[in-house]
C-alpha cells in the first residue's frame, strides 16, 4: 500500500504537509494545578500537572538542591488501543515514553526557578491513533502553561515520514505508522529552533534527513501557533470573567 | 503475574474432576430445601434451618505469635495469629492511626479444588472485608505509625469462612493484648427462595449463590460482624439479590447469632487468662 496516492493525497485524504485536526482545551480539571486535553485527529490525550511542591516519597533523596525535580508518568488507558492492553503503565514502552517526555519538557521548563521542589506531570492516552508521543508533549505543554510554571518557550513535538522515497509527510497517523515507512519524531522549541529530542525508526538515506527534519520542524511551528492561540483564548476567557484588562472611559486600565 | 519458582507448579490448565460428577446429586440437594413446609424441614447435617453449628474456640495455639486463636465450626477450621506492632514499612508520612495488616489465605488443601499459594482475587476481597470488620474494634490511636499483622489461614473450608475468620481474628487480637473497645463476633446466613438458613455449609452456600428458575426469588449470602457490648455492626457484606424486607429480617437473625457467639468467645478468653495465672502461680507455691 502506498503512503501517497497518484493524486498526491495520503491514506486519510490529507496533503503531505497537512496536520491532523487539533482540538484542545486547558483547565479540564479543578483539583490539579494545571490540566489540558488535546485531540490530534483520533489521538486523545489528557495531561495534568501538580506542583511545584515539596519533594515526595522517593524523590526526596533524588531531588537536586538547585533546581526542580521533574517527574513524568506516561500511561495508556487499557481500552485506548485496538487490542486491549493488559496494564496501563509500567511496561517497557511506557517507561521509555516517560523518560522521553521528561527529556523534552525539562528543556523547556525553567527548572532553576524552583529549587528543592518537585513537579509532577502525568499524561494519560485515552485513545491512541498514532503520534501518541507528540500529542503527549503538546498536551503537557498546555498543562504546564495552565499551571503557571515558568517556561523558556513551548515544547512542541511532531512526527514526519517519507513516502515513495522522496516526499516527506507530516504528522503520521497510526495507519501510516503500521503500513511501514520511516517515522521521525522531533520535540523542539520552535521559536529558538532548537531540537530537544529526536527519535527515528526504520531507515532512509541520509540525503533525505534534512528535508524530513525540515517538514517535522515546520509541523512543530504550525502546532505551536495552534497551541499559542488556545492559550491566548483561554487566558482571555478567564481574564474577562475576573475583569482583567477592562478600560474605563479615560482609557486607563482598571 | 509473578510466580513462585520454588514451589512445584501444577499444570497450567486443569479441571477438577468434581465438575464432571453426575448432576443427579445436585437435584437431590434442591429437593432437600424445596420441601412443602420449609420451617419444619431439617438440613442435610440434621440441623434446623435457624440452627447455628456448634462452635469450638481456643486461644494461644501458636507459640511464636504474640496472640493466636483457633476456631472450628464442624468442618470449617480457621487458625489466626497476630504479631507485635511494628513500624509501617515503606511509609514516609506520619499516620495518626495505627493500621491493621490483614492477610487471609485458604490453605492449598482447604477446598475441593486446590488453592494456589499466592493470594487470589477472592482472598484479597475477603482480607479487605476482614480488615474492615476489625478496624472499628481496635483502639488504633494507641499505636500511631505502627501496624499489627494479622494472618488468617483457613485450614478447611465448609462455608462461613469469612465469619469464622473474623471471630477468630478478633479473639487472636484480644489474646495478643492489642487494646480493643470490644470483642468482634461474626455470623453468616444464606437465603434461597423464602428459606433462611443460619450458618450455611459450603453446599448450602453454593445453592444460595445460584438463582432458582422461578423468577424474582430472593437468594444470596450475608455476613455480619458485631461488637456485642456496644451493639455496633462493624461489617456487613451481602451478595445475591434480595428485597429490603428480606435483608432486614436476615440482619435481625444475624445479630442474634452474633450475640449468641459473644459469650462463648468471652468464656474462651476468661479461660485462657485463668489458665495463664494458674500456671504462673504453680512455680511460686512450690
Amino acid at each position, binding site marked *: 500500500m502506498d503512503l501517497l496516492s497518484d493524486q498526491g493525497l495520503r491514506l486519510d485524504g490529507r496533503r503531505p504537509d497537512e496536520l491532523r485536526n487539533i*482540538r484542545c482545551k486547558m483547565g479540564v480539571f479543578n483539583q490539579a494545578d494545571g490540566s489540558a486535553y488535546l485531540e490530534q485527529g483520533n489521538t486523545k490525550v489528557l495531561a495534568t500537572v501538580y506542583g511545584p511542591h515539596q519533594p515526595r516519597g522517593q524523590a526526596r533523596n533524588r531531588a537536586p538542591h538547585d533546581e526542580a525535580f521533574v517527574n513524568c508518568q506516561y500511561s495508556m488507558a487499557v481500552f485506548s488501543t485496538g487490542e486491549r492492553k493488559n496494564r496501563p503503565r509500567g511496561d517497557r514502552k511506557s517507561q521509555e515514553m516517560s523518560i522521553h517526555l521528561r527529556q523534552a519538557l525539562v528543556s523547556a521548563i525553567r527548572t532553576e526557578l524552583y529549587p528543592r521542589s518537585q513537579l509532577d506531570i502525568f499524561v494519560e492516552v485515552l485513545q491512541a491513533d498514532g503520534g501518541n508521543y507528540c500529542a503527549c508533549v503538546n498536551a503537557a505543554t498546555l498543562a504546564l502553561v495552565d499551571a503557571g510554571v515558568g517556561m523558556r518557550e513551548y515544547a512542541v513535538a511532531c512526527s514526519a515520514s517519507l513516502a515513495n522515497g522522496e516526499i516527506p509527510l507530516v504528522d503520521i497517523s497510526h495507519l501510516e505508522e503500521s503500513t511501514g515507512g520511516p517515522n521521525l519524531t522531533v520535540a523542539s522549541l520552535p521559536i529558538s529552533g532548537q531540537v530537544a529530542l529526536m527519535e527515528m525508526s526504520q531507515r532512509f538515506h541520509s540525503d533525505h534527513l534534512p528535508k524530513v527534519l525540515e517538514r517535522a520542524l515546520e509541523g512543530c511551528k504550525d502546532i505551536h501557533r495552534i497551541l499559542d492561540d488556545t492559550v491566548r483564548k483561554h487566558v482571555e476567557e478567564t481574564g474577562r470573567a475576573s475583569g482583567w484588562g477592562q478600560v474605563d472611559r479615560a482609557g486607563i486600565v482598571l | 503475574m509473578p510466580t513462585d519458582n520454588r514451589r512445584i507448579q501444577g499444570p497450567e490448565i486443569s479441571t477438577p474432576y468434581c*465438575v464432571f460428577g453426575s448432576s443427579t446429586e445436585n437435584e437431590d440437594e434442591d429437593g432437600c430445601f424445596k420441601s412443602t413446609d420449609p420451617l419444619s424441614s431439617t438440613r442435610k447435617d440434621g440441623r434446623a434451618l435457624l440452627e447455628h453449628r456448634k462452635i469450638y474456640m481456643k486461644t494461644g495455639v501458636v507459640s511464636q505469635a504474640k496472640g493466636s486463636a483457633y476456631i472450628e465450626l464442624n468442618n470449617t477450621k480457621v487458625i489466626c495469629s497476630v504479631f507485635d506492632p511494628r513500624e509501617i514499612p515503606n511509609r514516609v508520612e506520619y499516620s495518626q492511626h495505627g493500621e491493621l495488616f490483614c492477610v487471609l489465605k485458604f490453605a492449598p488443601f482447604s477446598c475441593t479444588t486446590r488453592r494456589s499459594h499466592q493470594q487470589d482475587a477472592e482472598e484479597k476481597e475477603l482480607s*479487605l472485608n476482614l480488615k474492615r470488620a476489625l478496624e472499628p474494634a481496635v483502639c488504633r490511636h494507641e499505636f500511631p505509625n505502627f501496624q499489627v499483622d494479622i494472618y488468617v489461614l483457613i485450614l478447611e473450608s465448609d462455608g462461613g469462612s469469612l465469619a469464622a475468620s473474623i471471630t477468630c481474628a478478633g479473639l487472636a487480637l484480644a489474646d495478643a493484648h492489642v487494646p480493643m473497645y470490644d470483642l468482634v463476633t461474626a455470623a453468616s446466613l444464606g437465603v434461597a427462595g423464602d428459606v433462611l438458613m443460619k450458618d450455611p455449609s459450603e453446599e448450602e452456600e453454593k445453592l444460595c449463590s445460584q438463582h432458582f428458575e422461578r423468577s424474582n426469588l430472593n437468594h444470596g449470602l450475608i455476613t455480619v460482624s458485631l461488637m456485642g457490648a456496644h451493639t455496633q455492626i462493624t461489617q456487613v457484606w451481602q451478595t445475591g439479590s434480595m428485597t429490603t424486607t428480606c435483608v432486614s429480617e436476615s440482619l435481625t437473625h444475624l445479630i442474634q447469632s452474633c450475640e449468641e457467639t459473644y459469650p462463648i468467645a468471652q468464656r474462651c478468653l476468661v479461660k485462657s487468662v485463668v489458665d495463664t495465672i494458674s500456671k504462673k502461680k504453680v512455680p511460686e507455691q512450690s
Partner: protein
Amino acid sequence: MVKSTSYLFFFISFGNFLSVYFIFQNDLRNDGRSKQDYRPIELELDIVTHANGSARVRLANTDILVGVKTEIDVPTSNRPEEGKIEFFVDCSANATPEFEGKGGQDLATEIGNYLGSSFASPLSFDLKPLCILKGVQCWKLYVDILILECGGNLFDAVSLAVKAALYNTMVPRVETVAMDGGNVDLQLSGDPFDCWRLDITNIPCLVTLTKIGEHLIVDPTAEEEECSMASLVVAVTESGRINSLCKTSVGSLHPQTLTDALKVGVEVGVGLNKALNEALGREEKRLQSNKPERFGFLK
C-alpha cells in the same frame, strides 16, 4: 517525628467537620444541598472509538471514563453456558499524585471487587446470552474503568458510568458457528453495525450512604467523606432490590442505623436508576440524530 504538614491537615479537616456539622442544623449542607440530593451529573456515551461501548460520567468533580471491550474466550468448566465479565479499575495519577505508580491499587481493587459482587447474581446481570457455543466459546466483556478525578463518591459515579457503558456496548452478531474437528469456526457478521445490545434493566446502581454525626447523607463530597464516621454502599436495582451491600470505611454502625440507611438507600437508588435511564434515552436520541456532536473533554 511529627511533621507540621500533618497537623495542618488535621486542622483543615477539623474545620470542615465543624462547618459541615453546623450547616446541618438547617437541614442543608455546605453546598446548599439537602441530605438526599446528588450533585449535578453529566453523562456522555460513545466517546472512545476503539471500545465496543464507552461512557463518561462527571459527578461534580469526580470524573470517570469507562470503556467496554468484547473478546472471544472459553467458558469456565463449571459454568459452561455462561459468558464472562471482568472489571478492571485504574486510578489514574491524573486524579491525585498519590495514585502514581501502585498508589491507587488498593482503592482500585476495592471498587473492582465490589462491582464484581454486585454483578454476581444472575438477577443483576445475566451472563447466559453471552454464550456462543456451550462449553466451547463465549464472549468476555472487559469493563475497564478509568478514574480521572476524585471529588468524592467514587462508587456511585463508577457504577453509573459502568451501567451507561454497558448500555452503549455493541456486541457483534455471530452468524454461524461450526465445529471443524476440535476447532471452532466462527463467522462474525460482515456488517460492523450488525450488533446486539446487552440487557441492562436489572443492573444495579451503587448508592453510598455516609454517616456524619447523626445524619445520613448521600453523594458525599471529598470533604464530607473526610469527616464521616462510616459509609455503607448499597447496590440497588430499578425495581428496588438490594443486590449487594457492604460497609466501606472505617467505623461501625448501630443495627437500627443500618436498617434506616437501607430504606433511604433503596429509595434513592430507585430514583437514581430512573434518572439514569431517562438520561440514557435522551443521549441515545442525540447520538442517533444526523450529526451528533462529540464533546468529550472539550466542553
